[in-house]
């Protein structure tokens, strides 16, 4: 249910940002998607909102630092907090700079909070339900107003902890060290022992890690060839980057929005007998298997072939104050909007793609003011003492400042070579793209016989290049047949 903050009985949250604010000028807020739909029935909008989920959403009560808030059952806690105008959740380790959600996809550290008894829990991954207790971390007295911020001002450029207080004798050094120890660490030790479910071993022909377009296609092709496929994705839904697309996609000639397209692929995989595990993060690969962690337990997956289709990460932005709360990846802004939360009232978008255009349009339909970066212009820095209050842009005509309360930054996407790398696949520099890729030979093959890479994790060129055609699955299928013939049995 969309929350009407001005309704009687609804909580009024004071937000500190230099001055006290009331809920009326809260910038991040829930979008009344029904009203938006009524006003703008056509065009991009239908591709934007997750109508089914939003229409059926139930409200629940959560607590943040002791304050009662309402949330939608099942939404990421980070969104519940944003919808309540809270974008600052903790303080950084050394400088005590404010930290808030940035990626909304479990890729950063911005949303770490204590959830129930668990320290350092990603609030964009943990879901809302009645009675959840969220606490900010590493801040005194609160994440929004932390006195240790002086560290940040005291060290205007950097902080050389290697040589801190080494010149004044052992006594002073000792005092510094005791202080540093007290300051170290983020959360505190849990008070109780959790008892997760026992790990589960799974044996299969093919393990597919990552269910973006590449992984979806590959898993389907392998299943069609009669192989036993286990497919995992760390997100609760399939689709990878495509799921956050605000554009129309086609399915059998019909126009469908991205999540619908993705869910059709998921249905297809399930119909083919693929064992799909969502919210299941492949965390580590070893010679003899792959360790997958779900919300409940660990899975130990052994496969004849492992296919890494786990896409890319988003790098930090290259501008001053790139870490302020209120700075999101462009994808996170779209993702929040899809789930009915607008990240700001005045949003600067730095991207220039079709997706940025769609996002700008969709945001403007929510009464947000949208600023765009002009051709030739780059973002030099964000402004703000607590969270974002503006941005400085430089271009051919000089410098200009815009005021905004959120930035959707188009960040560099970099191949997620780590998992394949742990399995023994050499990561290499791509000098043209200035990043590292999982090194592969033709048809997704790597220097390890049982490991394949497909999609943007390996590609040298455009990250959306459709290299997940049937050549990769053909080599995976061939290997499985070969090893099955050698060992006799199928898994």
């Amino acid at each position, binding site marked *: 249910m969309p929350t009407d903050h001005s309704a009687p009985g609804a909580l009024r949250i004071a937000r500190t940002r230099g001055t006290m604010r009331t809920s009326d000028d809260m910038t991040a807020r829930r979008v009344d998607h029904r009203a938006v739909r009524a006003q703008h029935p056509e065009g991009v909008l239908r591709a934007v909102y997750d109508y089914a989920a939003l229409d059926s959403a139930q409200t629940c009560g959560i607590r943040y630092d002791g304050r009662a808030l309402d949330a939608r059952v099942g939404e990421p806690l980070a969104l519940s907090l944003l919808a309540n105008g809270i974008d600052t959740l903790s303080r950084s*380790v050394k400088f005590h700079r404010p930290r808030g959600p940035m990626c909304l996809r479990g890729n950063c550290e911005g949303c770490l909070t204590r959830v129930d*008894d*668990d*320290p*350092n829990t990603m609030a964009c991954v943990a879901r809302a339900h009645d009675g959840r207790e969220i606490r900010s971390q590493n801040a005194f007295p609160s994440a929004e107003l932390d006195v240790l911020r002086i560290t940040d001002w005291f060290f205007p450029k950097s902080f050389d*902890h*290697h*040589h*801190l*207080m*080494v*010149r*004044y*004798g*052992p006594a002073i*050094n000792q005092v510094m*060290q005791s202080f*540093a*120890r*007290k300051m*170290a*660490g*983020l*959360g*505190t*030790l*849990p*008070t*109780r*022992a*959790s*008892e*997760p479910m026992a790990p589960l071993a799974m044996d299969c022909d093919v393990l597919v890690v990552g269910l973006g377009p590449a992984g979806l296609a590959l898993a389907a092709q392998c299943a069609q060839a009669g192989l036993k496929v286990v497919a995992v994705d760390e997100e609760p839904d399939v689709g990878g980057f495509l799921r956050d697309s605000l554009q129309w996609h086609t399915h059998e000639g019909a126009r469908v929005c991205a999540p619908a397209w993705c869910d059709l692929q998921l249905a297809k995989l399930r119909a083919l007998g693929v064992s799909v595990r969502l919210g299941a993060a492949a965390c*580590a690969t*070893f*010679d*003899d*298997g792959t*360790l997958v962690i779900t919300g409940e337990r660990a899975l*130990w997956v052994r496969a004849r072939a492992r296919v890494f289709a786990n896409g890319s990460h988003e790098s930090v932005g290259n501008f001053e104050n790139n870490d302020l709360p209120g700075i999101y990846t462009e994808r996170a802004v779209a993702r929040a909007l899809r789930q009915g939360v607008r990240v700001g009232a005045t949003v600067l978008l730095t991207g220039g793609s079709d997706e940025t255009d769609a996002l700008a349009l969709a945001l403007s339909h929510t009464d947000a003011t949208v600023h765009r970066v002009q051709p030739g212009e780059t973002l030099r820095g964000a402004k703000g003492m607590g969270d974002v209050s503006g941005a400085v842009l430089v271009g051919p005509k000089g410098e200009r400042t815009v005021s905004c309360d959120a930035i959707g930054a188009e960040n560099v996407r970099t191949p997620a070579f780590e998992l394949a*790398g*742990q399995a*023994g696949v*050499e990561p*290499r520099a791509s000098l043209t793209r200035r990043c590292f890729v999982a090194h592969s*030979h033709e048809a997704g*093959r*790597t*220097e*390890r*016989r*049982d490991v394949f890479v497909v999609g943007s994790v390996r590609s040298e060129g455009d990250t959306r290049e459709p290299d997940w055609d049937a050549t990769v699955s053909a080599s995976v299928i061939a290997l499985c047949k070969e090893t099955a013939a050698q060992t006799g049995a199928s898994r």
Partner: protein
Amino acid sequence: MKKHYRVVIIGAGIMGLSAAYHLARRGITDVLVIDRGYLCGGASGRNGGGVRAQFSSETNIRLMRESIEICRDFATEMKINVWFRQGGYLFLTRSKAQAAQLEASAGLQKRCGLATRLLSGREVQSIVPEIDTQGVELASFNPDDGVVFPWPFLWGYAQAAEALGVELATFTEVEGFATDGKRITSLALARTAHDALAAHDRAERTSAHGRGPQLAPESHTERPVQERFSVSAETVLCCAGAWSPNIAKMLDISLPNVPHRHEICSTEPLKPWLGPLVADLSNGLYFSQSARGEIVGGVSVEPVPHGINQRSSVQFLATYAQALVRTVPSMASVKVLRQWAGCYDLTPDQSPIVGRVDGCENFVLACGFMGHGFMMAPVMGRHLAEHIATEETSALFAQWNLRRFAEGNLLKSESMIIG
């Protein structure tokens, strides 16, 4: 780089750097230290940073007591923080036999002047309330033991040695030696591109024996050598840790020590709650809290792969997690952030191999430091410098010479080894 040096040290781990620093302090500054990789790439950059004097042999107790003193002043003397924190070492035993050994060691430690105390399970909880002490037979605690952050220790020695005139060449590997039958006349060196070596270093990517069936044939890459050259030296000091047997082999000297993979991991940073390093002698579990708040620890896992292998295994994670959660149940929802591995350099009698080698006059060894070579280095560096400068052999060096293996004079083994 010059053509000739008074001393060339192979290996810029803590041992090589400490020796270089102490040589320079004695006025011997014509020293070159080479390492095949980056600083901190060997065991010295991969260890748990534990420094303790609780051992079962008097030699170790006395040496490490001195190390603790050095660690205390290291930051202000060398002008770099090493975050030495004396939270003590808490040893746990779970059997009568081990308890008896612990008691005997504690007695010896007390006679050597340590503040070691024996504790019951209940008393353990007064030091770390979070520990489940069920099954703990007896524990010992020395409040003066502690932990350091290993990396800056290396930078501190490197920086100070360089300031005194020592040359340090990383990404430079010894590939062979020329000898005249009695002594080394020159060392053949190869310099690799900085990061090309990392790219090539399969020790961490592929287990040596996993190669056969698992690796595709295209995968063999040439080592990216940029330059090959040679230098000569009056004395060659081998501080190559677990790689030492390989180096000695180039001289047809065979060493009895073997590399033994030892894995370790670190959790998310937590606010301080754990004072001591806790070590369980029944299963090799140990853990402590670092200066940044992470819980860093390891456990024994058998069997280990043959040779130099720095790959991580799931068997380690499984064994460590089980042992740690049993010991501290509230750690169950604490998360592992990073795991890695290094090699212990194991000798048959758990004692190091140091000093000149019979049959090769100007070759000096300093290896076989097991799982406690980091804490030994501050003291051993000084002894090594003295040995090289004075050409005299102390009682300690006589006892720890390689020839004891040929002569069958193995030392009584050290029982307080972790992991």
